[in-house]
């Protein structure tokens, strides 16, 4: 069974603009990769637990101690559009 991937939908989920040329090129490539990747379903039985990290560690906490951190200026130093000490973004909420 061929793998069917709705590129437009997935690209929207990923907030990723694709050109028509990219969609035409990536489509067949991704289908081929997914065909190969689907092999994982052949061996992963129900009784096999999943692994998220190779060396599991749980409840890792740092001591709650004050220490130096980035200054306000440093934190904003790479912002594409800093404004009055903040990160400015285009309008998020539509006009009422």
């Amino acid at each position, binding site marked *: 069974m061929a793998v069917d991937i709705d590129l437009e939908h*997935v690209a929207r989920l990923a*907030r990723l603009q694709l050109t028509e040329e990219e969609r035409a090129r990536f489509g067949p490539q991704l289908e081929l*990769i997914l065909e190969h990747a689907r092999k994982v379903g052949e061996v992963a039985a129900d009784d096999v637990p*999943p692994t998220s990290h190779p060396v599991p*560690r749980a409840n890792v906490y740092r001591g709650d101690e004050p220490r130096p951190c980035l200054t306000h200026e440093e934190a904003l130093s790479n912002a594409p559009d800093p404004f009055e000490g903040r990160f400015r973004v285009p309008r998020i909420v539509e006009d009422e």
Partner: protein
Amino acid sequence: MTDVAGDDALGDRQGYELAAALRRGETSASEILEATLRRIEEVDGSVRAYLRVTADEGRAQAAAVDERLRAGGELPAVAGIPIAVKDVFCTKGIRTTAGSRILEPYVPPYDCTPWARLSAAGAVMTGKTNCDEFAMGSSNENSAFGPVHNPWCLDAVPGGSSGGSAAAVACGEAVWALGSDTGGSVRQPAALCGVVGLKPTYGRISRYGLIAFASSLDHVGTFARSVRDTATLLSAIAGHDPMDATSLPDPPRDYTEGLDAGVGGLRVGVVEDWLSMEGTEPGVRDAFQAGLDALERLGANVVPVKLPHADYALSAYYLIAPAEASSNLARYDGVRYGLRVEGDGVVEMNTRTRGAGFGDEVKRRIILGTYALSAGYYDAYYGQAQKVRTLVIRDFRQAFADADVIAAPTSPTTAFRIGERADDPLAMYLSDVFTIPADLAGIPAISIPCGVDGEGLPVGFQLMGKLLDEPTVLRSAHALEQELAFAQRPALVSSRG
């Protein structure tokens, strides 16, 4: 070693030789750096290992080391050694792009832990090295800033994703380098460039300040031209870091201790299916076999082992890594750093920024990962891949009951031509078939040069060990290195064969 001063090949020396010469007063950190910068000047126009040479910063660091020497102070082992840093490591005040347009203007306000430790110990930075965009690739062709050329054959790739770091160390443009290994990105380019590449246990080296690709798979690794130097570099950067929650609490050690203990009686496991695998080049198989023979001559016992689920490891990797990448790379949205392409409203700005800022391979993986995690597909893809990961780990546990280390070729092929696999992502992914299992299992693995193929291109010999058993991996690699005495250096020629 006498009269090394003024020698233009200082960057070609081993770090331990330079360290000894420094302490004997035969050279200075500044002389070592200047010789290395001259080599960069001479060859990097054709190799293109560096995105940025940090001569000013390096000179200041070298002068500080020379000052400490004059004052008669004790120096850490890495002091004065020129080190190249892959451009996925954040370096304070030094532009860091991850090989991507989307981070082209980014100047980190802080240092990653590995470089912070090296810097505090007096290491000297030569520059930031080229790499595949966000470390995604096996050829360095996915860099937004152009490919790196393999010093052994300039028409060929250096491997990836840490291609610039491997190439720089191969031709004396740096003595050591830092890299990152998520699916083989240190070991595979080390193999293709004829140098030593180590990926230690997951969590052994802090990843604080390493630009994230796939967090359950990302490892910091090292490049050098000998196992002894590799052990010295690892000793300087390994150890717990409260800034990285995945960093292991086990106390650091001096990894140069016990290197010379030999391999008498050591059980070396070999996965026989891998050698007969379609796509493994005869030249790779022959050089690997010569390495096994050498280990046997030294008294090791070669035993067959099985990794029955290794066939599925590649498939699992190409679901897990893109899935984690699609999440990690969500932060590049045009708000806090990097590129912004304006748009009508925030979603359009995000979407255009990402469309303009990411290259082909990163886009493919973001789509692949988003798809594998999306409603209705999660269980069939990501969930199943995580179960395969469990099976791969169980396989290794079983294999390490019969073997102390497991040997395999690092890559099924030697360096391939630039452009040869660029339009076939799946063929490119197969470059990592022998390196991915160690990333999935988090176990330490090293690649050392074990010979050349019929075209004179280097072949890598990989040794994998149990979790945190870097000492056995390094000891066996050191013994093999001494026995093989591989001394060929890259010729910087444009074609071979």
